């Protein structure tokens, strides 16, 4: 694995710093699991077939992968590929006429199902000549770092189903999300921060809410932890008013608590989870600073703030989350999911007033996403950070009603960057209308297999025994998921 020397030193400092922050230097969420790794903890809750309990300790992948951490810039609602990436001049030629053979619309009652050309200009970017529309000028400027997959397709046409398929490998509820799998597989590199962090709009959660970072039937320690980008990042970080600004009083309380817990533990020496609990109280009292420091963007330069657009109204909130995501990744967080601002609900779900709305949303995400990629790049983090820019499906080439676009599960475009992805590549092709995939189809499960592969994980080997079955993210036996080798950098 090649590493940029600058990055390495940064990494080491962060790590050392992190370890020294906590006197104990153990477990963020589950110290019990750490003890388990030392063989001290006979966990009664350990499920059959998962005999070797894993905590959050960093673990080696199955083979050496290029990516060490992941940031998922999830674009919920279903971004319109025919307006953003996949230029279809045929739509103009067929304007007002139906797509030959018809299309599958999500909503039954369609006033119009006629081709609606994109009003946006498309141009080539960078040395690779990657085509993107003028809605995304900043991402366009990063084109040579990007890999554009135009042949994505999914099975489900409703938001929840398609989201679950994207996050968990199946459209059903109750399965663990990609971030949970990755954290389960690789642990985390900074135990004073959660291994899997979620940064969502403080106004509320997008479609399917907390299921987007569920650990499903994986142990709860692999669940995503939402950190709030405004106000106190975690709940219950601050002591009650009675004790506010009186650290001596809290200290005395904690000393008494430790004494009581130690006495209790001496009577039950075989119950090692008690030790973890004792440690957690001390850790709980210490983490405040760690989390707040990680989330505080004030130390970032003015130039960086400008880069992410935190100084402009339309990008301030989303830009801040992208910047926080970078700070968290630097500090060893394994997986960060950043969710969009809620603009009329799911921002990309443009069933009406499509052209105006997509312009607003594109403006909202373009600069921050591009900033994140170039910022990671200049810090030497991009080569081992996998960036995923994707929604749950695409949109139809035809009009819905007067001026909307309905869901399209048969074809859509996503972006990947960094982490061993072939930069500058445009992969796959759709038909003349952008309705269906014509060349090199990539299923959601293929994408998941590829993401895991980039992290050095074999999607068929990464399993968890649940209810008598070795479950995996891709369930390749059923879904026939395969790593898409063409997407990998050589």
């Amino acid at each position, binding site marked *: 694995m090649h590493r940029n020397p600058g990055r390495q030193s940064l990494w080491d400092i962060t790590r050392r710093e992190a370890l020294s922050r906590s006197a104990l230097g153990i477990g963020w*969420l*589950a*110290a*019990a*699991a750490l003890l388990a790794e030392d063989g001290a903890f*006979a966990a009664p*809750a350990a*499920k*059959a077939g998962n005999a070797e309990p894993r905590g959050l300790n960093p673990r080696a992948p199955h083979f050496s992968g290029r990516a060490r951490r992941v940031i998922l810039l999830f674009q919920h609602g279903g971004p319109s590929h025919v307006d953003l990436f996949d230029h279809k001049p045929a739509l103009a030629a067929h304007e007002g006429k139906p797509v030959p053979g018809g299309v*599958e*619309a*999500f*909503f*039954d009652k369609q006033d119009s199902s006629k081709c609606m050309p994109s009003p946006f200009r498309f141009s080539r970017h960078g040395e690779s000549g990657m085509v993107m529309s003028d809605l995304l000028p900043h991402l366009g400027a990063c084109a040579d770092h990007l890999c554009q997959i135009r042949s994505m397709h999914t099975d489900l*046409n*409703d938001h929840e*189903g398609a989201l679950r398929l994207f996050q968990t490998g199946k459209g*059903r*509820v*109750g399965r663990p999300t990609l971030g949970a799998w990755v954290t389960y597989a690789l642990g985390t590199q900074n135990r004073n921060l959660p291994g899997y962090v979620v940064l969502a709009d*403080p106004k509320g959660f997008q*479609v*399917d*809410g907390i299921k987007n970072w569920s650990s499903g039937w994986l142990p*709860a*320690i692999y669940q995503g932890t939402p950190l709030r980008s405004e*106000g106190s990042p*975690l*709940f*219950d970080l*601050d002591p*009650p008013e*009675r004790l506010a600004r009186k650290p*001596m*009083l809290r200290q*005395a309380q904690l000393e*008494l*608590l430790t*004494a*009581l*817990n130690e006495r*209790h533990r001496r*009577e*039950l*020496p*075989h*119950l090692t989870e008690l030790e973890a*609990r*004792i440690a*957690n*109280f001390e*850790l*709980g009292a210490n983490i405040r600073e760690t989390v707040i420091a990680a989330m505080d963007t004030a130390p970032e330069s003015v130039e960086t703030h400008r880069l992410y657009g935190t100084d402009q109204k339309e990008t301030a909130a989303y830009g801040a989350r992208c910047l926080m995501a970078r700070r968290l990744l630097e500090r060893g967080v394994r997986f960060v999911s950043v969710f969009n601002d809620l603009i009329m609900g799911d921002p990309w779900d443009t069933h009406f007033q499509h052209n105006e709305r997509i312009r607003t949303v594109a403006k909202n995400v373009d600069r921050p996403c591009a900033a994140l990629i170039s910022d990671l790049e200049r810090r030497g983090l991009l080569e081992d950070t996998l960036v995923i820019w994707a929604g749950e499906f695409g949109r139809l080439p035809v009009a819905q009603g007067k001026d909307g676009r309905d869901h399209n599960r048969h074809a859509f475009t996503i972006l990947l960057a960094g982490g061993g992805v072939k930069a500058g590549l445009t992969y796959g092709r759709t038909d003349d209308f952008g309705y269906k995939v014509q060349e090199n189809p990539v299923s959601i499960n293929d994408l998941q297999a590829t993401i895991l592969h980039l992290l050095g994980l*074999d999607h068929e*080997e990464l*399993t968890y025994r649940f*209810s*008598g*079955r*070795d479950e995996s993210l891709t369930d390749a036996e059923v879904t026939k998921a395969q790593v898409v080798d063409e997407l990998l950098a050589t």
Partner: protein
Amino acid sequence: VPHKWAGSITAADSTRLAVYSIVVIGIWTGLTTLLIAAEKTVRFEEGVQSILRKRCFGCHGDDRTRRKAELDLRTAATILKGGVSGPALVPGTPDGSLMWKQITTGKMPPQPADRLTPQELAVVRAWILGGALSKTAGSDEGIADVDRNFWSFRLLAHVTAPKVNDPNSVATPIDRFLLARLEAQGLSYSPPADRYALIRRASFDLIGLPPSPEEIQAFVADNRPDAYRRLIERLVASPHYGEHWGRHWLDVVGYSDSNGYHRADTPRPLAHRYRDYVIRSFNDDKPYARFWLEQLAGDELVSRQQLQTYSPEVVKLLVATHFLRNGPDGTDSTEGNEIARTIERYAVLEQQLRITMSAMFGLTIDCARCHSHKFDPIPQTDYYSLQAVFYPAFNVKKWVAPKDRSIHVAPREQLAKWQTASKRCDQEIERLKQSFAVWAAAHRSREFAGQLQGKRDELDKAVKAKEAARPGKPGEIAWVTDQSAEPPVVPLLKRGRYFEPGAEVAAGTLSVLCEPGERLTIAPPESGAPTTGRRLAFARWATRRNSRAAALLARVQVNRIWMWHFGRGLIDTPENFGARGLAPSHPQLLEWLATQFMEGGWSTKMLHRQILLSNAYRQGTRPTTKALTVDPDNRLMWGYPVHRLESEAVRDSLLVAAGAFDRRIGGPAVDFAQSSDGQCVVPGDEKRETGSGSRRSVYLRHRRSEPIAFLQTFDQATAEPNCIQRSSATLVSQALVMLNSRFANAMADRFAELIWAEAGMSVERRIRRAYLIAYGRLPAESEAERAYRFLASQTTRYRNAGAADGPAAMSALSDYCQVLLSSNEFLYVR
């Protein structure tokens, strides 16, 4: 040891193996001749798979990371596909089959101890000779005796409790089963728990609440020989018993007050009737078999005539069917096309079947939706036959959305009263409209045009007011019933695909739990209910005594009851009693308990008594060095298994300690609210005024999309779709909540005020009272001293920080109380 098909073998090995193979070949020739003479066609699933599972799966089974030579021996198809050395067998030709050569020449399995016995070899050979057949997907053939004889699918075995060396340690037969195993390891029970520990343990266990200081002192002082038995009887008779054990059941069935699935997560405003039905059923010790009959087919037990009267008994039966609505159901808020609608409807059916099968039989049958189950003897046809049992109520083609699955079941007089009131309302509205019409007719000319709109608005307003005053139709309940007595056509779905229907399937059940040739007999319900009778037939089949189904039903529930008592079941996979589940730690005990359960009239309270009166339950937890060496996991029960309280019990006992526990039972779900920082909290939980209270956790509104923060932090059940075993994680967030949350701090303050008021001015008495409330025991002298020192020094610190004497002492007491409530002793039951 590296081993592949062509692995290296030492000289000594090969000599030994050569001898072994000759002997083996001699024997198998004889045996297979017999088998072939009987013209028995062996299928892969009839013994071959279980032999290979035992002998070969270690390196050629589920675990891909450990798989050698890329050879997967789990199914006939993967064997035919073979590994790095090519196909492992040639159907019909054992001698030309690589696998056969390997196992007969002793090369495989590599460890001599693992090698196949002559009988096993004979089975494998017969199988290859017969063409290496396996069950074909979609056929219910192939359920063989060997499948039916799997330990969990067998009829209940009548076992007798073993003899033990130390009969003095035996209080109930349970002790014999446990002690026999302990003694074999040179272990014994821990010394009995003291009375303080015992009453706290039994209280949390049976009613989910801590004992009050008065109850503790009364029990400790009770010198009657049956004091403990009286305690148990008092607890199982408490109305809080049903709340606690009902909550366990709600986990199993995936209860929720919302529909889940979509972001809308629409409410189920009537679900609480089912929750209360469950609580009452436990309080009444409803026989478990009857409980199932009502939940699966309560509507089919009600005759048309009874349906007119709506006696409480009838209403109860109808409410029970809400069991079938517990799974996520997004069809209230489905938008989208026919495909989306169909998928979501099937999802409801599938989740419901999943919940039913896991709750009744501890089986996961989802795999059989697309193909016959790989590991358990569940053909795909069984899946759809089961689906056909529930389909008449959940007809995908004639769907009823959850909001429309309700019925008004008020008694006649009440309904008549409502009808009168409602009619009066109609009349009044009619009168208003008429007077408007009269006015309008009289004022047709243009000059009144300006007034017309005003008059119309006036009318609308008046009508709206009348409508608002209209009394709601009484007695609405949410239920499930068949849409018609006419059975619909239910197709098998090829490969589980919704738009590829296959042949029609008849309603049926799990073949492996039937005797060969047995079928589900379906008849119209004798009650005359307008239903197909399918669910009723299924429920009767499942609960028929001395059947395979009832045996499994009993084993699964008895194991869960054991788990809810001890924190861990006799089987570590309570959600899976199939081939992939783990074997029970005490199989004989499980059989015995299941038999007691079934033959004792399916009484849950009887089981509680059996368990709680055992010495196993009454022992303390004193790990000896030997116990920790021989059985560090306490699987043999050398001590009472200490465990953490469940989330509801943590919250409820905080409320109890603070004197803020509202003891009311039943009723509509209690709403939670979003706090200013976006957490879901119970408003009553943060109140500080003495006298205010908050309801028990089981009554809090459960929304799949918005978990209540406190309960979620302590691992409440995940209703996705149901939860057979909760996790018990150790999270930093748990520490943060106890130290910093408004709820925990409000409770600590109120706990302190309570003690202050109850124990008067003596600090010693306050400390004793606090210990009794939080830990259920009195402090040792050293503990009391430490507490005293803390209170004194913390009071001084508050005073130094500027507080007056009274408030300083009060704040110090709050700090102290918070420490007690945050400590492990409060959180754990021992």
